[in-house]
């Protein structure tokens, strides 16, 4: 067996900067490489990467591999699988880390199959077992009803994806030193079978969910798209933004880009107000990191009350208008 060493993060960029999720991976990756006493590397693909590579080094990366190419969001996943598997075959890392993002969800499974190795998706904790030196992979299962810890002792490299917001992002320290190494990201075009026809970004006006301090979320209990007027109004007064659960998304009441939960955004605002939300673990997976959770629901037995800090049992149509009035008076709008 080859000598697999170190941790390689497959990083992601947004507007030429590393994403928050990548910063979280750097802090997790740093702990893992310190536990193994091996190097932490980061792979970045994009254009003009010198500055962002320096930033990554200040965040704790020992070695940044930079490849000149199109960022993931504008590229074809098939191409990225080919690029990353080529890079991994050269570098032979022991651990390959992704975020549980569009890229991680798509690339990690195929990469593991291609490298004939193991993969664990959507981990919330990764540690090195001090005795066996194997990677312990903790992940929620059964929609969050249970948590499983896995190890894959006989397989290298080990591919894992990490849930966003499961760890704190790495903090910069400009005294850190590291190395920047260019890599080739050329792939055999004859092997690319798909063709990217269109990339559409549905612009969400206002505050991004991941950065919002206050989020008001409407669930299936809202009953239709009209009810979201109240949700929007409350969010606006509190200086926040709105989210939805899967029901309003699947029913087409509201756009998918607002969905919070296992199959949507993962958020951690200071205040999370869940209105007409039953509290399925699959939704809570996306918001349980919030500092304060408030639940408003007609059903006193709704599971959301088990996960909230404050609750009102009642009809949101009656509760929200007075909540809005009171907040308006408070913030003197």
């Amino acid at each position: 067996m080859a000598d697999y060493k170190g941790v390689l993060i497959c990083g992601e960029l947004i507007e030429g900067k590393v994403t928050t999720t990548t910063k979280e991976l750097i802090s997790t990756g740093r702990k893992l490489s310190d536990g193994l006493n091996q190097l932490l590397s980061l792979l970045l693909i994009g254009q003009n990467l010198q500055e962002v590579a320096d930033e990554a080094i200040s965040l704790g990366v020992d070695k940044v591999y930079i490849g000149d190419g199109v960022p993931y969001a504008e590229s074809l996943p098939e191409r990225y699988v080919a690029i990353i598997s080529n890079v991994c075959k050269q570098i032979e890392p022991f651990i390959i880390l992704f975020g549980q993002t569009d890229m991680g969800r798509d690339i990690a499974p195929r990469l593991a199959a291609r490298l004939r190795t193991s993969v664990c998706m959507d981990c919330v904790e990764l540690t090195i077992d001090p005795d066996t030196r194997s990677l312990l992979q903790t992940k929620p299962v059964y929609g969050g009803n249970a948590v499983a810890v896995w190890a894959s002792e006989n397989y290298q490299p080990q591919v894992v994806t990490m849930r966003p917001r499961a760890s704190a992002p790495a903090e910069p320290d400009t005294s850190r030193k590291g190395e920047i190494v260019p890599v080739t990201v050329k792939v055999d075009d004859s092997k690319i079978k798909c063709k990217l026809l269109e990339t559409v970004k549905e612009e969400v006006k206002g505050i991004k969910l991941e950065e919002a301090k206050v989020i008001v979320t409407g669930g299936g209990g809202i009953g239709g798209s009209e009810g979201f007027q109240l949700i929007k109004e409350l969010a606006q007064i509190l200086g926040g933004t709105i989210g939805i659960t899967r029901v309003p998304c699947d029913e087409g009441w509201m756009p998918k880009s607002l969905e919070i939960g296992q199959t949507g955004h993962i958020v951690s605002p200071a205040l999370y107000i869940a209105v007409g939300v039953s509290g399925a673990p699959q939704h809570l997976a996306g918001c349980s990191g919030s500092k304060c959770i408030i639940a408003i629901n007609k059903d006193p037995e709704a599971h959301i009350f088990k996960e909230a800090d404050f609750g009102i049992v009642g009809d949101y149509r009656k509760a929200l208008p007075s909540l809005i009035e009171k907040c308006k008076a408070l913030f003197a709008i």
Partner: protein
Amino acid sequence: MNIIVCIKQIPDPEIPPAKFKLDIESKRVIPPEGIPPVINPYDEQAVELALRLKDKYGGKITVLTVGSDAASNIVKHALSMGADQGIVLNDKAFEDSDSFSTAYILSQAIRKIGDYDLVLCGRQAADWDEGLVGSIIAENLGLPLVTLAEAIDVPDGELSVKQVTLEGYQVIAVPIPAVVTVSNEVGRPRLPSGWGIISASQKQIPVWSASDLDADPSKIGASAARRKLIKLFIPVRERKCEIIEGETEAEASVKLVDRLIKAGVI
């Protein structure tokens, strides 16, 4: 368009968390009493997407599942929705297979069926929440793959797949045959029709074993698993909810704001 849909039977993911029980010793989920297992909801949406394609372009839908005798129930469900035939892949040697082994078993069955244009899988199974099997099947069969599809069209003999992204979507052209995993944005699957239920009940559901699939024993079952389950537990809930009482919802809302100010939240 001949479509193969891979489906899985799982414990009902909609059960209230209070009914969710584990056997910590054996690291297994205890099936909830009186609540029968169901077709994985994401797989049901894959069946729905297959039916939409069949409605538009014609062809035949075959559903495949790796499971025990009881798994024929979900095959029947897919047939009653409108799928044409179903096969259960059942062998003692398949038990406790991981995603790689399951994908291998399904790939062998897909090879055996041979005549297909498209393989559909749900984006993930709502039990272990991995989202691996479809992608591994594509790698095994050397087929192009698109994950997390919301819609598929077939203009000019090629697939045009709308892939959901966190902030929008991509449209990808894919040559046939291909593997596509299906996301929940497909929406609500159709209900079985009365006629569908009757015709499904009359259909034979063949069972294929490891030898029918010419399956390599080193690639299936618990011994082939690439990961070992060390521990399975129910997470501790840390929050304690303070219910704000009031004569009316309006009164409770006003009290809530005061309480939040006192707690320093707003």
